[in-house]
């Protein structure tokens, strides 16, 4: 119990620092790239003096660190700001409406936009994990138990092929073949669960090789540990040793892979795949925000991604220490 408290306090403190640094980096980079957000908010027709005044009112002319401090202060109160571009009704207003001044009140709140998008992304990511594990666990275990023989080689070749398929190409090919030609599954937008299957498959193909390798290596490694053969001398059957001991111990490297690699890969690919499939998740929101220089959304999603990564890692490490108590020391 004490260990858990100590562990979480330590790791959450570390995590906060990481998130803060990432937020600062994103914040600074966004303000260094060319393109004035005021122009995007108000449109090209607005006079320079009005634009300048709006910018001043919004604090966009203050030093970056001052702006960042103000931003962190708002986040601490749960306020991620409002979109520069999107109206509260959902439409994008990108300056064409010739508004004289920028009125924040009629813009959508960032937290609201993200909250609507997150469930879709969670569904897609969860489905991708299920597909990837359903494929990788049997293949990885079989390869690990028959290390050096044909199942091991099969697993390696399959992983190599999967790794070499560019996800964007695979997405387009699947949309064309499965959706457009055969008509088995819908592909564009979201009107029901079946819309998530095709993009999830694309993501799973990208994730599976990482899992297969990790499982195969740890299973074959654990199989060679002395306690497995000693267990058989002690009177336990080989299958019992494999199911109850080898698999259990192989879980730790798999968890680590899940935490560090898989979530990282997923966060990256999710943006692209959602965009290709026009899937209304966080990724699509992000890509559109980047095109529109909608800083508050970009910042919030970046911070969110960072938080997810940090939290998943803390949980994964904690799970690992409960499986293998040696890690607590």
């Amino acid at each position, binding site marked *: 119990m*004490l*260990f858990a*408290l*100590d562990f979480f*306090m*330590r790791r959450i403190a570390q995590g906060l620092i990481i998130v803060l640094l990432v937020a600062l980096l994103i914040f600074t980079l966004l303000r260094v790239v060319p393109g004035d957000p005021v122009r995007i908010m108000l449109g090209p027709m607005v006079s320079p003096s009005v634009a300048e005044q709006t910018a001043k009112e919004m604090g966009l002319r203050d030093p970056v660190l001052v702006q960042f401090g103000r931003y962190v202060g708002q986040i601490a109160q749960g306020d991620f700001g409002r979109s520069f571009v999107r109206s509260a009704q959902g439409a994008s207003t990108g300056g064409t409406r010739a508004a004289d001044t920028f009125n924040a009140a009629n813009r959508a709140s960032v937290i609201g936009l993200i909250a609507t998008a997150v469930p879709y992304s969670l569904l897609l990511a969860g489905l991708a994990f299920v597909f990837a594990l359903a494929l990788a666990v049997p293949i990885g275990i079989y390869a690990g138990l028959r290390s050096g023989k044909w199942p091991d080689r099969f697993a390696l070749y399959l992983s190599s092929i999967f790794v070499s398929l560019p996800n964007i190409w695979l997405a387009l090919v699947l949309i064309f073949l499965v959706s457009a030609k055969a008509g088995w599954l819908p592909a564009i937008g979201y009107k029901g669960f079946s819309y998530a299957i095709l993009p999830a498959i694309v993501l799973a193909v990208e994730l599976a090789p990482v899992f297969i390798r990790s499982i195969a290596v740890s299973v074959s490694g654990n199989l060679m*540990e*002395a*306690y497995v*053969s*000693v*267990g*058989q*001398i*002690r*009177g*336990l*059957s080989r299958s*019992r040793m494999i199911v*109850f*001991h080898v698999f*259990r*111990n192989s879980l730790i490297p798999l968890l680590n892979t899940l935490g560090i690699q898989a979530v990282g890969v997923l966060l990256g690919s999710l943006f692209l795949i959602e965009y290709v499939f026009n899937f209304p998740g966080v990724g699509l929101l992000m890509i559109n925000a980047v095109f529109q220089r909608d800083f508050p959304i970009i910042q919030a999603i970046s911070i969110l991604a960072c938080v997810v990564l940090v939290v998943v890692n803390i949980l994964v490490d904690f799970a690992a220490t409960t*499986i*293998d*108590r*040696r890690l*607590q*020391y």
Partner: protein
Amino acid sequence: MNTSSKILDVQGLSVDLLLGSGARRPVLRDVSLSIEENRVLGIIGESGSGKTVLSRALINWVARPLEITGGKILYRGEDLVTLPQRQMQALRGRKIAYIGSDPGSALDPTIPIGHQIVEKLKAVEPGISTADAARRVVRTLDAVRIPSAAQRFQEFPFQFSGGMMQRVMIVDALVTQPDLLVADNITQPLDVTVAAQILRLLKDLQRDFNTAILFVSSSLGTLHDIADEVLVLSAGQVVEHQPFEDLLSAPKHPYTANLISDLPKIWEADTRNTGASIADKISDSEVVLSVRDISRVYSTKDPTKLFGKQHVHAVRGVSFDVHKGDSLGIVGESGCGKSSLSRLLSLLELPNTGQILFKGKDIARLNARGQLDLRKRFQLLLQDPFNAIPPHFTIGRTIAEPLRIHGMAGSAIRPKVEQVMQEIGLSLDLHDKLPVGLSAGQRQRVNIARAMVLDPELLILDETLSALDQVEQTKLLALFEKLQRERGITLLYISHDLGMVRRVCNRVAVMYLGRVVELSDNQTTFFNPGHPYTRALLSAVPSIEARPYDPEKYLLEGEPPNPINIPPGCSFRTRCPFAIEKCATIDPVLTPRAGEAFAACHLAKIVEAA
């Protein structure tokens, strides 16, 4: 002899090793043996004689590339060689148990030991309830004298010391009340006192559980304590089989005779072969190394407090002087601070308090230049000869490395390296070869050559010879004696092997819980020690000689206390059979007994007088 009392009867067993090219090499040839109920059969042989293969073959654990090519292994009349896998599985663990030499890796590291033994019990005795099984395991844990058994039932393998883990494996083996226990070198990795405890325990248990034991060992001294009869194995063949006493007094085979005569004698009065002979010429010579009250504390995380730290007192106020030409032995059980001390002495770490003076200069205060200069005169040799040598350098390059570091001219290096190689006994052909394929002994010689090439004045040997077999050890000890005679170097042997220390050291420091408890000359240490811990260590040394210290009286139970919570007063009092009231409050300091002999015990004087 009627067959019914024979539990195991092996007839003409042969095992081959299949080599890659279809060739085969015999590992066991025509081995026959039998063991009766309640008897202990010892099997001895040097490394490579086939002991381990034999002990595994007896439980039908022979896997590729090994193959049984002939013979029968009859267990109560049933041939195990032809027994179907399923029935063998049931027999193993239940009626025939096996304990190996590596208890640390025998169980799944992530599951509490009790649960694993229960798992086994349920597998070999179907129908037993988990609660019953757990009760039986706790009872057996108690029987092997594991303190607070119920609590340790829930602990993980890594929380047990080597000795305690070996007890756990004994529990695992005996919990089903087998008729036959195969014990393969089970005391080999343990400290002498712990090994002696395990042997004593096994003897008691054998009586209580009526188990026949097949005890495999490479040390005759160990078998002396346990075996009724001994079978000598050499190159895969049984060369002799006799009751133990007859074997000692009248060995039939020359191999056995050699084995017995080559054993280092510890208690022999003849000092020709021991360090005592070189004891006289020293002591008045110059002090090379002076250690003054050094201590070292390591901080680790305290799992019982939030963000807490706890302090491991590894070395606590150690002082001694080493004279030029001395061979000082530092002995003690694992965890007593020997290795921490060697790290401090070799300047890998600095002491928290105290001073180490090398020829009068404090080594902690040296600048980088001074340290480099010091290291030239001051070499450390470690136990593992495999990881200490870079695999991609030629042997000549490895030995020359220190000379390059210390800036020797290029042309002078090769002759110097070759000279040292000859002196150490390395063939000059090896100069341009890689260390691949060298034996442990040869590798250790490369290590020694690398140290000696700098002409050091002090060598610290931290368990340098422990990994080598008897024969190789003897050769290297002779080499060190020669080097010492010819060059007058000073040697510091850090070792747990009292037999070796008896042979080569003129002075001995005994360490317990980070402190030197006795510092005496060789003769006094072995024949008139002032500290009860020294006597306990001596009583535990396996030997075929008659021992002056009766284990029944002197051998300790339990293990040293945790160096985090050292008891107040004398730190040895918790295990000391002679502790008096004073010991609980006053920590005894190292006090002179006679001449060069010191002991840290309130009773030291009294013992000497008695």
